[in-house]
């Protein structure tokens, strides 16, 4: 099993969710996060005083998939999240040792 994590632009969440549903992904966890990459943040001015806002709002998705699906899921997310503009985000995967479905106690890939 692999955990696919993506940090994307918030307004792309719907597109990514639809694409993952079409692919067959059954569940998804999202969180609102802030961060920056090479694009950095922006500046705001209040009564002439400049504030730099380094952390830009993003959406983070976490989804656990079977080993065989991981590559395709990354592709699906990348395609759906892309705008071609700066700040589109990142997708990465990590190995998952174990997984339990709390209701039934099923373990491993059956619990995905």
């Amino acid at each position, binding site marked *: 099993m692999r955990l696919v994590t993506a940090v994307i632009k918030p307004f792309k969440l719907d597109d990514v969710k639809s694409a993952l549903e079409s692919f067959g992904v059954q569940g998804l966890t999202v969180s609102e996060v802030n961060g920056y990459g090479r694009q950095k943040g922006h500046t*705001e*001015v*209040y*009564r*002439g005083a400049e*504030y730099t*806002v380094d952390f830009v709002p993003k959406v983070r998705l976490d989804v656990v998939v079977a080993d065989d699906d991981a590559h395709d899921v990354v592709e699906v997310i990348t395609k759906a999240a892309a705008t071609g503009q700066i700040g589109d985000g990142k997708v990465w995967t990590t190995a998952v040792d174990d997984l339990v479905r709390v209701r039934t106690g099923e373990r491993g890939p059956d619990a995905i």
Partner: protein
Amino acid sequence: MHFDLNTVDTGNTAWVLASAALVLLMTPGLAFFYGGMVRSKNVLGMLMQNFVTIGIVGVVWVMVAYSLAFGANGFGGFAGNLHQFGLGHMSEQVAGYQGGLAQTIPPLVFMAFQLMFAIITPALITGASADRLKFGAFVVFVTVWIIAVHAPIAHWVFSPEGWLFKKGAEDFAGGTVVHANAGAAGLALAIVLGKRLGWKKDPMRPHNLPFTLLGAGLLWFGWFGFNAGSALGASNLAGVAFVNTNTATCAAMLGWLIVERFRDGHPTTLGAASGAVAGLVAITPAAGFVSPVGAVLLGLVAGAVCALAISLKYRLGYDDALDVVGVHLVGGVVGALLIGFLGTNRGNGGVGLNGLFYGGGVHLLKLQAIAVGAAVGYSFVATLIIAKALDLVMGLRLTRDEEQEGMDTVLHAETAYDFGGVAAGGFSPTQRAATGGPPVGASTGGAARTEGVQA
């Protein structure tokens, strides 16, 4: 002398009563104007200082401060005497309002109208001391300040018994008594308090600009009572003040936005709200004394000058958190001095003197400069002494830990915004014993209170 109730004009009385209610609304409006500009951890602290000012002044004014402001000369002319202590002798004429100045509204109605001015004046100061002033110290400060600073200055300028009034200095609705006075006091208090932790380093951007714009709107609305009500009658003069107030405010908003557009690149909502307030401040002393075109000029100048004045604090190094100096002191002084140029008695039924541009020479400008100098000088020095004394006796400033934690939980044991979730906490319906400390379980606030070290 006895006030003859048969001389009461019902229309005038109705307008002044309605105006008093409008002016009261300005203080909650100010609370939101300021509340939106502070960080979210201090919003209740800011709202509370403004609200409790209504409570304190509402009592102090009735008991003693009204008499000090509008009683017949006492204390060698420094303030009114105590003849109206506890609102005694209110069946008599207000001192000095005789002959051409005779009032057509009951003295009690006049008192109520002036009370609302006395409420908002110290409330304005809270912007300078934002985020770091102890609540108890603030309560004592306002009580002393209304008696020792506001009442005497109101006496000098507003009461026909006052020395500046007798000289002929003009302040239609409180440019010097309310705004320059509060601005000078704010500067003194900010200097005694010192800078907020992390000033010029940590981000302290406004946490809720919609609040600030809402507050500015309420101020603007209430200000029609402040200025047009100061005609003390439902008259042509009230209409002149009403139109000038709106005109100058609109021009000042545009003036501020123009400065922002060229200096910062973007016209901002905070700039629109600030410019409007700067215009309201500046037209206050002049509302009944200028022409509509004069109001446009006065507004444009005030908006642009105040937009530039707010950066002074960064250069001079005093932390006037929400720009009470840049908006109220500078705006009040600009408005009061511009009367010396733009003042005219052609459109208001012959009230007041002509300024430099209307053939009156520099006489009026001199008078205005004397009034501004006296009010600003006295307010600054007296406030500096009061603040320093209170700091020595009881301490003005929150501890370092309390300031970092924020006023809302530390001073009031409350949270402004509950969006549910984990941070909503637990609940116990039983009342805890009054210990004076924060509730059990408010661990961070409790630690800050008990272990806090003086900053």
